[in-house]
């Protein structure tokens, strides 16, 4: 019975593989540069099939063009229609799409949708919907570059969609880059969080209690275990970061802790390092300043 199930799964996997391969091949075939011309010139037996093929080639061509623009420009605009019968401006929506690439792949796509709320001043845009996570400063950027109404006094903010897009893309990309850097740091430090994972596997821990201050030097920990931990090689046991990757906290095996403030472009700006007893380690604090990427090397030096 099990063997049969196994076989079925294998076959399913193979079908999926072959499907993907077929899709890939058809995309390549449809992308042939002279395909549309050939399709329209050669005589064919079935006219409907020819139309269908031409349509497919056209779709593929559009997709290729769109992707090339998106991949190269990073920010692209498009128009969509809001199906809501009561929508502002008859549902005309200008979409701005921001593609974020980290190293060799595009990790995420974000959208900001604009409407024209005022019938008089048609060029005035307002953010209608968006998919920007709240840890990215969208509102301050909108305040900066997208005034809500046309003010004619001096000091009025001028609407500048291009600058808005650039600034927003910078925020988003730097957020992703920080995330990738922290992830790399975790891997380099060899932090796997084994203890947490064990607890999680057992389904025991709900979470980490933040206001439970257990005195470590009492019998809460076995003496020998503590000794092993203290006298063993010094290493980083935990790397934590908040969701916007602006604050990094490290924990060492000897109970030493560090909290670091990270700027948006990935510099560690400030660091507070304390020993288990609570004394500041200013030499380590000085070493910590600099890029996130070289943090471990600097600390080890």
């Amino acid at each position, binding site marked *: 019975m099990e063997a049969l199930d196994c076989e079925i799964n294998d076959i399913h996997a193979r079908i999926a593989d072959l499907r993907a391969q077929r899709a890939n091949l058809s995309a390549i075939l449809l992308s042939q540069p002279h395909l549309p011309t050939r399709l329209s010139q050669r005589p064919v037996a079935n006219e409907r099939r020819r139309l269908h093929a031409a349509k497919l080639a056209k779709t593929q061509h559009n997709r290729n063009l769109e992707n090339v623009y998106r991949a190269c420009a990073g920010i692209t605009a498009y128009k969509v229609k809001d199906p*809501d019968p009561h929508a502002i401006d008859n549902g005309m929506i200008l979409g701005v799409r921001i593609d974020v690439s980290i190293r060799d792949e595009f990790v995420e796509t974000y959208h900001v*949708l604009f409407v024209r709320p005022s019938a008089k001043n048609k060029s005035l845009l*307002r953010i209608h919907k968006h*998919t920007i996570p709240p840890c990215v400063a969208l509102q301050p950027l909108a305040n900066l570059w997208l005034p809500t109404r046309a003010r004619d006094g001096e000091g009025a903010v001028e609407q500048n969609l291009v600058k808005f897009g650039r600034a927003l893309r910078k925020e988003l990309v730097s957020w992703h880059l920080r995330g990738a850097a922290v992830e790399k740091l975790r891997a380099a430090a060899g932090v796997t969080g084994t203890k947490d994972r064990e607890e999680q596997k057992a389904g025991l821990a*709900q*979470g980490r209690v933040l206001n439970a201050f257990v005195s470590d030097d009492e019998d809460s920990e076995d003496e020998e275990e503590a000794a092993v931990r203290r006298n063993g090689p010094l290493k980083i046991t935990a790397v934590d970061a908040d969701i916007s990757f602006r*604050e990094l906290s490290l924990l060492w095996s000897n109970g030493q802790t560090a909290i670091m403030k990270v700027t948006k472009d990935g510099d560690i700006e400030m660091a507070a390092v304390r020993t288990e007893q609570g004394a500041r380690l200013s030499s380590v604090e000085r070493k910590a300043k600099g890029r996130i990427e070289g943090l471990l090397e600097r600390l080890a030096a």
Partner: protein
Amino acid sequence: MAPHATTTTVPDCKNIPHSHRLPVTHREVVRTLGKLSRLSLISLAQQWLMKKNRDFCPPYLLADQDPNDVDVEDQYDPAHSCDELLETYKVLGARKGGKREVLDRILEGDWRTGISMYQLATAEIQHLLDHPTALRWTAKRLAKIPNSRSAVHDMEVTNDSDHLPRFQAQTFMANLARELTPLMKAHYLLMRLKTMPITILRVYIHDSPYSTEQSLATETSSSDGAKAVFFIWPNGSPFVYSSLATHLGQVVGDDGRHLRDIVQQAIPKAFSRPSARYQLASTNFTARSLDALLTYRGPGKSNGAAGGFSIFQDHSFSQNALDFITSQKTDDAEKSGAGGEKAGPGRPKRALDDAEAPEAKRRREVAEGRFGTSAKPNDGQGLDRFEVRIDDPFPPIPNSAARADGDTSDLNAQPANRSRRGRPSLLDRSAAEIEEIQDRADEAWVPDVRVTFQGPHVFAGIRQLVEQGVVDGEKMPGWMTGEAGVTIGAVKNGRIRTKDRVPGV
């Protein structure tokens, strides 16, 4: 603490520590633990017995037993050590059995001397995790109070500017306690959850000037109100959800609300720093399901793109920029479409559906277009209540349409009868009352119409109505798809009124 503390109790300014115990017969203890399932009880007991938590919830061991007072009738023999107990609970967890068995063992056996505040708090959080729709949450936003001096600074987006309030657990707890201790005694438990990206604060309110164990145990029988308040911070977002920890069927009295308000007022103060003051702003959002809250007021991409705009959240609108394959997608769409029909609510009436298949298919596509990927019946993001007040002029009735059309066309660009047909299910409830007074209607008659939708998943329900053809999917106003992302709002010009700010941040 001095040994004579039991005799002289003086009012003080301390928090209630984790280790203070309530007697096992206390109403809160019985209620809270009684709600939990067998599995949860066992997992909790194991958690309490873990080394780092033992200080807060010491079990009753053999060493604690008074040798002069050995009760032979005792049902549960005290264990020798915590590790032995841990083993006992592991064995209990491995085999099947009733919940009562574990509950009795905890209350009458291993923790017969009392359940500590820490245990009570973790038990209540466990119940919340087991039943994420047990409480009703109100989402608020921590907003910076505009300050003329810092206004320019707040506008800036620089390399090290921060627009979200910073959450430092220790500082926050110290500030909160400083705000609250003069008013009441409370026990706090702040926990960062592992299964969800949230931080929970539970405040157990003890309405007494004393913070001793004795004063905790005495039941203030006058009020049966909720004694605990929950606050949740979704990590990396400016929102706070608050709720009273009520038990099933418990009425929320004025006392409970008042206490919650006191804690709620203290929270922005605890967040504030010099030159960065915060206040709680309403976000017009109340829901039962935590998943729904995290979708509409959470840390992710979905806050500002609800309803039909959900297609922008995932790759259903735009594929990865390096995905050149066009054919795969159509295959998938056909497959999922067919799957949707099969699993759809219309299955029992298949024969009927087949007869009007093109019609039904079209309606399904319309619903797809209006709702996008949101409002699926089993997505766990159901809103249980959605209220709107309609501030639009009442659409003219057909026999006087000629006169009214001319009058209202400048008020409302849409033809008036269109909006009427679009909302039949909304207006039919009050239509009778309205028709009674229709003869007094003039061109801008705006009756006070309020519409409330209720159910386990309001927008999935509306989507089903569209698919069944009860609601016209094409003429339905956008707020019926939930795209405004609020649970209470006023409709003007067919749209929910919004403030002039970016939605969902």
